[in-house]
């Protein structure tokens, strides 16, 4: 066991093991730093930038989820500079993406007094809902590109490689190979991606159908037929899809 290190976060001295991140050190003393892409089960890639903090002596703001706590470091987690960044990031997310089913982000937005009316008229991301398999729907109008689903589908968990990215920049979307339906991808329906999605962009099909107002009996019938159709089409791609009885 190596020697603990001491650093100062918001005027409080904290001791942590040398491998600890600034985020872990802050959590240790009850300081809450907002995060979005961070998840304990996935590799931190520091892309949402909500968790940035000001470290004395450092020019840019530092992403606390990946930056190691250093001995003697002096960290400020809620300076005006940090607040502006977090508020602007949240505003920009809300200006382009449907966050109505992302309770954590909603809470951050209240905490940082977000005003999205400033962005009226700006282009939103609104691709259509992808309902192409019996297990889950993909509503990328709700996707904040935290990357977690791609990560768990690949080396962070499943090694399935069903999804990656299409486009780049603002046009980036999570996508299968040439946007093929999920049934034609390498997806094994492990459900890990649903488990890590922070905004309900990925949602179990039955839950989604319930929200659409279908009764449980209808839902069971719909998904049962879909499953059977999928199985038979996998076995014989030329077969006709089965129709639901009126």
């Amino acid at each position, binding site marked *: 066991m190596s020697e603990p290190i001491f650093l100062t976060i918001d005027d409080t001295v904290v001791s942590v093991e040398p491998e600890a991140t600034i985020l872990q050190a802050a959590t240790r003393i009850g300081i809450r730093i907002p995060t979005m892409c961070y998840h304990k089960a996935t590799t931190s890639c520091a892309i949402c930038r909500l968790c940035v903090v000001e470290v004395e002596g450092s020019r840019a703001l530092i992403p606390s989820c990946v930056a190691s706590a250093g001995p003697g470091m002096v960290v400020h987690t809620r300076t005006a500079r940090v607040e502006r960044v977090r508020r602007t990031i949240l505003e920009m997310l809300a200006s382009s993406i449907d966050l109505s089913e992302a309770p954590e982000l909603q809470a951050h937005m209240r905490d940082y007094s977000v005003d999205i009316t400033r962005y009226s008229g700006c282009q939103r991301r609104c691709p259509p809902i992808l309902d192409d398999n019996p297990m889950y729907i993909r509503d990328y109008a709700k996707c904040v590109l935290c990357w977690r689903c791609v990560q768990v589908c690949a080396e962070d968990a499943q090694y399935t490689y069903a999804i990656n990215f299409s486009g780049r920049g603002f046009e980036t979307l999570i996508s299968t190979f*040439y946007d093929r339906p999920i049934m034609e991808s390498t997806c094994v329906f492990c459900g890990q991606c649903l488990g890590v999605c922070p905004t309900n962009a990925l949602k179990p099909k039955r839950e989604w159908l319930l929200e659409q107002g279908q009764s449980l009996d209808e839902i069971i019938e719909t998904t049962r037929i879909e499953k059977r159709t999928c199985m038979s089409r996998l076995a014989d791609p030329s077969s006709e899809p089965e129709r639901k009885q009126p």
Partner: protein
Amino acid sequence: MENPDISLLAPVTAEYAPLGRTALLPALHAAQAIYGWLPQEVAAEIAAALGVPLVEVFGVIEFYKLFYPRPVRKTVDIICTDPVCAMAGAQEAYNVIARHYKPGALDVTVQRSPCLGLCEHAPTALVQEKQFGELHPRMDGALTDDIGLTPFGVPGGDLRLLTALCGKNRPTSLVEYRANGGYEALVKAFARPPEDLIAEVKASGLVGRGGAAFPTGAKWEGAYRANGQPKYVVCNGEEAEPGAFKDRVLMEEDPHRIIEGLAITAHAIGASKGYIFIRGEYPRAYQVMRAAVEEARSIFPVEIEVRRGAGAYICGEETALFEAIEGKRGFPRIKPPFPTTAGLFGKPTVISNVETLANIPLIITLGADGYRRYGTEKSPGPKLFCVSGDVMKPGLYEVPFGITLRHLIEDLAGGMRDGKGLQCVLMDGAAGAFASPDQLDVRLSFEDLRAAGLPLGSGVVTVLNETRDLRDVLVRLARFFADESCGKCTPCRIGTRRQYEILERLAAGQRRPGDLELLQDIGWTMTDASLCGLGQTAATALISALRLWPVLFSPTDGKEP
């Protein structure tokens, strides 16, 4: 659509399969040369041959603008509409050409492009791997072989050390290079121990010429001391800053100087392999560098691979460039770790800009003391400046650090064109800042420019006359970043788009209270919190414009309400 004939791909998969994922970009380039675009059957075949997950091959194709996942026509006309070319009439040329080749009319796809790095010959285009300058489409818009000039370098300046052999309208051959003392520095370097070379380069005061100005000697020392084998040297030829063309001229016209610099670097840090990565929009530089590497093999064992980018400004960021060589989307990595300890393939790597490498043979030949006779105490050596825009003689000027901006523009570049007055100078391209006419006497050195609040960057000097609409220039710069953001981190992914949208609205005269505060919030958020240098500089030109000309976007245009 017909299924592509996969049998045509056999030579490509045979050549690249043994290399695995690192060969992904080269394999996709080769496949696209066969089919014109990248159908999914072809992508699947390459994925299987190289052992890359299908969906990640698709992710890579989608990332790079010069790869086409959907059919394009037989000929693709790529026309630059960034500020320098736009000032020379590129937008009008684009409109004429796009109208002529309206969708479905003829076998041509017309694409708007970011800066093609041919700015001294604006307006410019790239048509089927051929670069064109002084573009003059016929009035009916048809693009033919005589649309413009083949744009060679136009070097000049007070010094001709780095550009000594440039300006001949052709590359310097190995024989010529050696006849002028070429590769003598390499012979000298091979006879000296690495520590000695590192000390020499440190003493020379050389700092990187790609924009970040990191001390080259410190980089060498870091990689030399780092644990891990093999080690790599990489030449960063992804020159894509709007207004930058110095590396293009060096690569196209004096390729051996760069190879010599790379080989000396490799010897100094103990690297066993080198890569030269050249932006996809520089087909001639790619051909010339490849041929030169082949030539160099006749005199020393060269383990150098020349690679092509495929349309992504972000790959000028060193870690994104590594990702491209590794066969991935060009996403910048989190730093630390830094390249000197964990760079290409996770190994210790020195990555240097083309111009930086061209300085290395000079330092070995002259010695650190001799080298320091050029330039200033704190900015030693020669520097290349890419001067474009409204001057009499746009071109590449080599000078010692410390001359004034006025000398560069008025004496070397011949002053303003068409008898118009100077409005401002954009220093360091899209990622730069504006200098006003009262700053013309600033000395061009790192220390003087820093004191004046201006970037030196990679040496881009874009001159704007008094008639230029700055709002149009700013909209084009903003569009450039919105197009080129990789999309990895939130501030840049959304911020570049919002900045572009708001500036476009303001330029159209639709202003709203709070616009300036909003631009400041977005700009500072990108500057402070973006993951890499692209986002961190995506608002600097705008922020400097708002400081210099606060009335530019004010609701009343500076007039009393």
